[in-house]
Each structure stands twice: as C-alpha cells, then as structure tokens.
C-alpha cells in the first residue's frame, strides 16, 4: 500500500470514527437518558400520549430507524469522498 493511500485511509477512518461517535451519542440519549427521565417527561403531552411513555413505545424506535438510514447516507458520502465506496 502506497503512502498516499495510507493518508487517504487515515482520513477516511477519522471521519468514519467521528460519525460513529455522533451516532452512538444520539443512540445513548434515546436509549437511556429519555427513559431515565420518563417520570418528568410524562408531565408533557405529545399527540395525546404522556411523552415519557411515547418515547418508550414509538419515539425512540422511530429515531433508531431514521438514525441508521441517516448514518448510512453520510457514510456513503465519506466512502465516496475517499474513493473507497464499493457501490456497484
């Protein structure tokens, strides 16, 4: 592997890593933080649901689905930027 290539790979991995950390931070908030404070959130009404309950039955779930699709969209951009996308 040439030096040029190595530099590109390091750049690619640095961006991939940053993206992953951001995704995990969002994951952590909607997996744990919002449910820890479910009691307080239940005081707020959302679409007729107590908000804390809503996160546990729909909100967090929907955010997980969207989070994966958004991460993959961004990861595809990173892969293409460094010329390592394996899109056919």
């Amino acid at each position, binding site marked *: 592997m040439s030096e040029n290539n190595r530099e590109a790979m390091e750049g690619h991995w640095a961006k991939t890593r940053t993206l992953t950390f951001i995704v995990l931070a969002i*994951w952590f908030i909607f*997996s744990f933080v919002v449910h820890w404070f479910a009691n307080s959130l239940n005081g707020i009404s959302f679409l007729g649901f107590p908000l804390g309950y809503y996160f546990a039955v729909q909100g967090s*779930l929907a955010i997980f689905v969207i989070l994966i699709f958004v991460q993959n969209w961004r990861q595809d951009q990173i892969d293409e930027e460094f010329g390592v*996308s394996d899109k056919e």
Partner: protein
Amino acid sequence: MQGNFIDNLGKVYGLYTGGFIVFIILMAILEQLGVSAAAIGIMFVIFTIAIYAGIGWLSRTMQVDAYYVAGREVPAVYNGMATAADWMSGASFVALAGGIYFGGHGYLAFVVGWTGGYVLVNALMAPYLRKFGCYTVPDFIGTRYGGNLARFCAVLVLVVASFTYVTAQINATGTIAARALQIPFEFGVWFGLLGILLCSMLGGMRAVTWTQVAQYIVLIIAYLVPVIWMSNVQGFGVIPHFSYGDAVQRIAELEPTLAVGTAPTESFAGLKALTNLHNEPGGAFAGWKFFALALCMMTGTASLPHILMRYFTTPSVRDARRSVGWSLFFIFLLYFTAPALATLTKLQLLDPNLPTAVIGKSIADVNNLEWIKNWSNVGMLKVTDGNGDGILQINEFFMRSGIVVLATPEIAGLPYVISGLVAAGGMAAAMSTADGLLLAIANALSHDLYYKIIDPKADTKTRLIVARILLIVIGAAGAFVASLKLTGILGAVAWAFCFANSGLFFPLVLGVWWKRANRQGAIAGMLCGFAAGALYLIYVQNGGTKIAGLDGLRFGMIGMPVSLIAMVVVSLMTPEPDEETQKMVDETRIPTGDTVIVAHDKA
C-alpha cells in the same frame, strides 16, 4: 436460473403475498360455509409449512458459498425482511404484547432494547464483518486474532447462547403446532422440528434466507391485520398506532378506581393477574433496572451470531449497511404495534363504558362469555372469586401472557379465520428464528470446529454433509430439551442475549475498533466474561443476593465489564499483534477491495 430468481424477486414474492391473501379469503369463505374452526386452523398451519418446505427444496445446494452465505447475493431489502423474521421469535410474536400488558413501563425496556441494538449492529459490526468476508462469527474471531483456541472459545460461547435460545423457539413451535393440530405437546415439538429442518437442511443459508422472507410476510400480515381490524370494530381509529394516547390516559384514570396493584389472594401456576400500573416509570431504582435490561438486550443483539451472519449474505458492504436499516424498519412495524395492542386490549377489559369489559361485572356473567370459556378450558385463563362478593376484581382475573395476542380476535368478536391466521403467524415467527439459530450452531461446528480445526483437508462434499448431519443432531437435541419444559419462553431468550454479550460483544467490537487487541486478550475476554456471567446467573438462580438488583435477565451487566477489563488488561500485558494482523484491521475498515479472508488466504 439463480440469476433469474434474484432478478425476479419482486414478482415472486408479490405473487406469493397475493396467493397468501387469496388463501385467507378462501378460508373465510369456507368458515361461512360451515367448515369447523379446528379444520381451518389445521389448514393454515399445514398450508404455510408446505410452502416453506417447497422453498427449502427449490433452494437446495451443494456449493459452499450458497450453503454458508446464500451466495452473497441477497439484496438489502430482502435481507432486511429475512433478518426481521430471523429476529422476531415466537416470544416476540406471542409474548411481547402480553409482557407489556402485565409488565407496565418496566417491560418496555425490552421494546427499546430489541430495537436500539440495531444501531450498534450498524455502527460497530455489520459493515466490517461483511468486508471481512467470513462464513461464521467464530470465523471472524479465529482469523482476526489467529489460532485455534480463540476460534474454539467463540464457538463455545456461540453454541451456549444459541442453544439456550433455540430450545425456546422449538418449544414455541411445539406449543402452536399442538394447539392448531390438536396433538400432544411432545408430538408438537417433533412436528415443529420437522418443519424447521425442511426449510434449512437441503439449502443451508440460501434456503433459510428465502423461507425467512416468506415467513416475514406471513407473520407481519398475521400481526397487523387483527390489531387494525379490532381497532376499527371497536372504534379506536383506523390506524390505532397514532391515536391510542387517550387510551393510555384513560387506563391511568381507571387504575385507582379498580385498585390495580392489590396483590391477588390466590395463585395459579403459569397464570398471572395484573398488578403493575400501565405507565408508571417508578423511581431511580426502576430507572437503573430499565437501563440495565435495555443495555443487555442491545449489546446482546449486536453479539448474537444468527443475526450477525445474516449480514454476510449481501453483495456489498454498502448493501450490508442498508440492509441493517431495512431490518430495523421491518422489525419496527411489529414492535410499535405491540404496545398499541396491549393498551387497547387492556382498555377493552377494564373500561366499564365498553361492552367488552369484564372487570367489575358479575362472575357468573363473565364465566358465560364464549372466549372466557374457550381459554379457561385449555388452562390459559382463570376467573375466581377470591373475596366472595360475586363481582370480578382485577386481582381475580388470571391469564397467561400469550393470551393478549392469541385471544384478541375473539375478545373483539372477529371471525375464526383471524385466529387461524394468528396461529400461522406465530408458527412462522418461531420457525424462522429456530432455523437461523440452528444454522448458526451447525455452521460454527461444521466450518470452525470440523473444517478449520479438526480436518482442514476435508473436501466440499464432506463438509456440507457434516454440516447437515450436525443440523439434524442439534435440532433433535433442541427438541428433546424443549420437550422437558424446563423454563418459560422468555427467561431463556433473555439468557441467550446475556451469554452472547458476556462472551462475544467486546472481542467482536474491539477486533475492528482497537488494533492493539490481540489473541491473548480476546481469549481472556471471551472466557472471563462468559464465566463471570454464567457463574452470576447460577448464583442468582440459586437464591444468591443480587448485586445492584441485577437478576437473571441482566447477568450481562456482570459478564460484559469483566470481559472488557480482562481483554484490555491481558492485551496490554502481552505483545501487540503482528504487522499482518494490523494490516488486516486496516483492510476491514474500508469497503473496497477483496474480502479480508480472501486476501489472507492468498498471502
């Protein structure tokens, strides 16, 4: 021919879905013509299993790539459906809504955990394992860390975790087959196993993939149709998912007046009375328990080999990632329906303003209801009069948690054809998960233990015959254990997640994310984590004092930290991996180029 099939997937499964709907309509017509409920139940189960077996037969193969990774040509959306079926077990289908009904807010940790885990699968595992190009999860461990011992430890953890899980699934197929076909449970278990093996034996991963797609279609139709129909019949809205917030609040108003939370004075084996409030998150300790359970289920999701190996079957790394997104989307469809079902069923039973209410009615009237009689007869429901006042109180109404799904069509007065559909859906859910698990175990034993460790010179034919023999042997062992009826379905499922995350989570994650991780560290991580978790489970099961309230469902909270510390400490105490291994990790991190295994074998 195969290429043709892949190009025509949309047509094939479109036709299949249409055919299934026509079959449902035909059954509805037969019901109107007076065919008995029992006959309709039998036809639903037999017809669907015959279709899966047909797909299994058409997908038969003697090629290694097709047998282990479905030829790596499964498009992202279809792999998403197959993963969703692989993932959603008999427990998800039958017991999830019941769990929410009985468990209240604390149980929702399962719902959050079993969906959020896919964020970890996508962010940490799937694309990298796909690039690696392994056939099995121990194949990754064995190649990344090198050496037979590391490979063997991974096989060990995989077998224990998956076997715990598969007995629960064979148990579920047995229960459903026994009820639908009206045969004893012990026969039902072996009948279920036969169906499971028909799907997987001839075609391995290729056959399992295409039957799982078919099973997903059946199970999601079977889950959504009754809920949406019930909601329309009872006036809860066209699509109940967005409008049941009022029902949640109404239940909260009713709970004090009905004295929900008063402990029952009697008890019946396997049956429960409702004592938990529907939406009461509790204090900090409940928050901790929620956190621990959700975390264990998420990390378990990201370590369970039968899930991870589904992402080895896509054509590219990019497709592996996309298919994780689709997997979670297809899982989401069921998981965001279950709480709606649990809430609406509860409201129907509790709210005195609704005609379906039973709580607060006279015991004699309740006992005269058709659905109460049916389910009491099979011992899944019990109405008593503990305080002798002739009125049914909430703590005098006992049922098995599976009833919430199974009896919904009857409570709402839907035709029997819907109950037959639900039985076919439950069967599809349990069979598809059992197939994935059995294949994960048999493949690890045939590829990693037999081919890589015992006889590396074995030819293709021998390898694939060994794989099939192992499939039968493990299936039979699973059916035998299931027929002993050792634990409830859900306990065993949660254990499988904790075994998997205790032994495999950190060795898998750090294999990609930490170049310095070496063989000694990985072995220490797998063995110490797995042993610590297993010992803690045994200790708690035998009445030991819980550490920080962690019970048998959450023993991964003990196993995982031990695994992480052992792996990091031992890795740092021993020499760093050689240059070739470090290059291998670099290669794993970029999507382009040969798979790492191919490059490794060339070198």
